[in-house]
């Protein structure tokens, strides 16, 4: 059992947890993730390690309420426990001094983007931070990204904060203006990462995205997370999660993500019904 030491409600649909997991904290690097199981009947879900404190033996993880597990996890508070925290999984992001790097965080994707951007900054890169969400209330860690950015942009779909539009529009302008841009990193919903691919591909700007397909063991055992990258099958859990966006077969990723949507809806509806009954 792994103890939750602190929580923080970040937005209406996301919550931060500081969890006691010294075995993970001492090794975790930017770009890696943990597998979490909330209780005896829970599923194994991958969650990015948003931060870690080696001395305290803690990691920070953020969940966005999408399905049954993330809603249920969001009911947990400091003092509660998680049944499983395993990791750190995945290959760490490749951090070096590339020059000028754009770091794009879409919505909840900031949880994964921020530690990578911070490491890139520490490696000497000039950071163009671009953060976006559907509206202002859903922006996560805007202040943190701003702090490490040399240039900083906020976009919202509805214009409630920063520029109205998508993160990729800022990227597009930078590329059109032929400003120096040596590398692009981005984490967010699949449509955003796919749009990044379309934006940078014509300019040949190397673009790395962190994929978050369905996983179970996350140790290379089951292969549910397989993605086609450059015509080859890769397991996102052990070969990723970072991949060259220009090489990813996005249609296939979307199709594979959709397989269990009906079951996810059923599980969530059942959970909500049980909660409503418990309250009544």
């Amino acid at each position, binding site marked *: 059992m792994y103890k939750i030491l602190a929580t923080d409600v970040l937005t209406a649909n996301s919550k931060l947890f500081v969890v006691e997991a010294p075995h993970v904290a001492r090794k975790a690097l930017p770009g890696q993730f943990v597998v979490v199981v909330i209780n005896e*009947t829970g599923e194994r879900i991958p969650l990015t390690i948003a931060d870690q404190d080696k001395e305290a033996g803690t990691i920070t993880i953020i969940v966005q309420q999408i399905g049954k597990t993330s809603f249920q996890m969001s009911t947990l508070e400091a003092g509660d426990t998680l049944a499983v925290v395993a990791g750190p999984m995945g290959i760490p992001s490749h951090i070096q001094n590339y020059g000028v790097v754009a770091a794009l965080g879409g919505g909840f994707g900031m949880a994964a983007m921020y530690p990578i951007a911070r490491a890139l900054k520490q490696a000497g890169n000039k950071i163009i931070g671009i953060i976006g969400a559907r509206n202002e209330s859903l922006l996560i860690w805007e202040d943190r990204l701003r702090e490490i950015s040399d240039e900083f942009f906020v976009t919202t779909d509805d214009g409630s904060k920063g520029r109205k539009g998508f993160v990729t529009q800022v990227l597009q302008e930078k590329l059109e203006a032929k400003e120096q841009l040596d590398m692009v990193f981005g984490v967010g919903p699949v449509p955003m990462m796919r749009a990044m691919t379309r934006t940078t591909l014509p300019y040949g700007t190397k673009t790395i995205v962190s994929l978050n397909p369905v996983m179970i*063991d996350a*140790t290379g055992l089951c292969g549910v997370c397989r993605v086609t990258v450059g015509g080859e099958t890769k397991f996102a859990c052990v070969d990723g999660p970072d991949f060259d966006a220009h090489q990813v077969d996005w249609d296939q990723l979307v199709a594979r993500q959709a397989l269990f949507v009906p079951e996810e809806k059923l599980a969530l509806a059942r959970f909500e019904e049980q909660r409503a009954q418990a309250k009544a």
Partner: protein
Amino acid sequence: MPKADFNRHGMPSQDAIARGKNFEEVALGYDEETAIEEAKRCLQCKNKPCMAGCPVNVQIPEFIEALRNGDFAASARIMKGTNNLPAICGRVCPQETQCEAVCVYAKRGAPVAVGRLERWIADWELSHGVELPSMSELSGKKVAIVGSGPAGITAAADLARFGHEVTVFEALHRPGGVLQYGIPPFRLPRSISSAEFANIERLGVKIQTDWVVGKTITVDELFADGFNAVFLGTGAGLPQFVGVPGENLAGVYSANEFLTRVNLMKAYAFPEYDTPVKVGERVAVVGAGNVAMDSARCALRLGAKDVSIVYRRSRTEMPARVEESEHAEEEGIHFRLLTAPLEMMGNEKGAVNAMRCQEMELGEPDASGRRRPIPKKGSEFTLEVDTVIVAIGTSPNPLVPRTTPGLDVSRHGTVVVDPETMATSKKGVWAGGDLVTGAATVIEAMGAGKKAAASMNVYLRGE
């Protein structure tokens, strides 16, 4: 000497139609009377051919002798002397190719049912309280076991009995490796495996789940943390695919994924358990080993209407145990033999809906000694399917080899060992089980774990 008796006692089992709808154990086990009657058939051969057929050298005539004399505690003690997991072995060992194959009755097709007797005495012990075996004096040495499958758990138990402090590191959240994620509960009830693991823990073995060696900690870091020796038993968990177009369509599972969902995550109880599994009406399982049979039988139990084994060779070459393929067939699994998949095809949503296949015929034997399948010209046809499960084999997981400098690995990804001692090229590191042999059986992995433990004990006592 007793009179020759060719009447081997049959194994009672759940009705084939009924069991196709549940995950309860198929084989029900002997009752006491039948076990004693079967034990009386043993001729107590002086040269004990059966014992030589056992990878962990169970003293077979001796445990059977005690059993038929009604001294069940003694029988269990003899069994446990060399086999740490008899209730598991009695269920999943391929006795027909091991101890029972060399029984003098085997020529007449009626070997003593060693496996069924093993199961009976092990279950008797589990329900009557397990005796702790004799333990050696503490050595003060620490051993790390990587992986809690059959090889690791066996090595752990023996090393604990030899007096060492043993920690088993398991990547998943429940111990057992393939016994947990791979073998379905209708062949190995989880109450049985849990009881066996609890007994291993009673020997002082610590099982640390959620630690992924190669990620959470490396082998070199284990030594730095004070472990004196390491045993690698990480198995062959990496699924192989056929390599035909369309294999990444939604609805195409590796057998590992499908079985992990069902067995480890208990997806058969969704939504009580959170992990879902989806089977369509028509399921094709590619491959014909035990894993393929397990996958097909799980798919049937999850409500599939039509489940087919698709295998490119004939029945004779099928790698599955005869008992497993017979059980599958009784339950209504179809066998499309001499059939190979060419392509998996999908709908507009990217979900599999058909598999293009080709009929095969058998040619000359190939390197494996089995007759090579050759495509029949013009025999292509399309099988409509909603789900495909690929069960054509697994290879060793590279996480540990990749992060362990000095560990020699073959071009197949298996770890190279001295076959006498199971010692690897790296000092203080032993390995055994599927990681060394490629996918094989539970009992062979256990044999390797025992052999390694003996060698490690010599090393640790001499260090």
